């Protein structure tokens, strides 16, 4: 099983770094799509099958929280697995994100922590984890 992933961040550098880190997690990846804000992400989700979205919070046009809200309102994509990748530290806002059915990864992050969160949010069981490739030993931080 390979995951189709959507990376949503207004920084092209950060999107590139997230893609690099994803490739280091050992998680099988299918297509990787990118979007610069929530609005662009919704456009991608209209046309592409996506299993997992990695979403920044602070973005112009449409921020991450609004994107998740719009996803949860849409019956066609409401079950999308979402991980918020952000510098956010406010307990209030993190709780709001968790209440929207998303998981949270704090920047900067490691390939290992991203892998664990992906497996958790996509519902991969411990038994299934054995069949998901192990991450490389090189534990780069991002």
């Amino acid at each position, binding site marked *: 099983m390979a995951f189709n992933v959507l990376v949503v961040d207004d920084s092209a*550098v950060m999107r*590139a770094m997230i893609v690099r880190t994803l490739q280091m997690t050992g998680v099988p990846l299918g297509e990787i799509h990118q979007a610069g804000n929530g609005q662009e992400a919704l456009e991608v989700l209209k046309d592409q099958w996506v299993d997992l979205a990695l979403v920044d919070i*602070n973005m*112009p046009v449409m921020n991450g929280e609004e994107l998740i809200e719009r996803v949860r309102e849409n019956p066609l994509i409401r079950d999308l697995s979402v991980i918020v990748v952000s*510098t956010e*530290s*406010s307990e209030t806002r993190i709780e709001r994100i968790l209440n929207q059915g998303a998981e949270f990864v704090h*920047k900067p992050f490691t390939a290992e922590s991203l892998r664990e969160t992906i497996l958790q949010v996509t519902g991969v069981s411990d038994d299934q984890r054995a069949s998901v490739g192990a991450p490389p030993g090189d534990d780069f*931080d*991002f």
Partner: protein
Amino acid sequence: MTSELQSELLRATTSTFEDLAFAFPEAEIEDHQLEAPLAWGARVAFSGPVNGTLDIQVTDGVAAELAANMLGMHDASDDGMKRDALGEIANVICGNVVPSLGKASDVFDLRSPEVYVVGTDGEETSAGATRLVVGIDGGRAEITVRVMAHVVEGAGA
């Protein structure tokens, strides 16, 4: 609060440079690092219980090194790459520093980073600002946090 902010700024700067860009800042700065002209700056404005800005200014070589390391390239002399990388560095440092200005439950909003060429953005006073200077290879980075106003709950209309 100033000493707490200073130590938080050092912690956030060090971890962001190391984890995000594989660059290792040093508190001891040599003459040639101090003499190198600052070339690029990025500013992130934040608002919440406390409003203010975080600025980072770096030498051209440091900007290129950050971009190259973040993108996994040997050479990142393109100005667009430098701007994007420095903006993201500023964003992450700011996001990790501002919680120390409030309570854990406080919500801060960060504006998108504005990247500029040093010397074209006007001079701002550093009075009352918290500043950190670190050396990185042949250059340096200067990070400044300015707190503009304390927003008092219940004040105003």
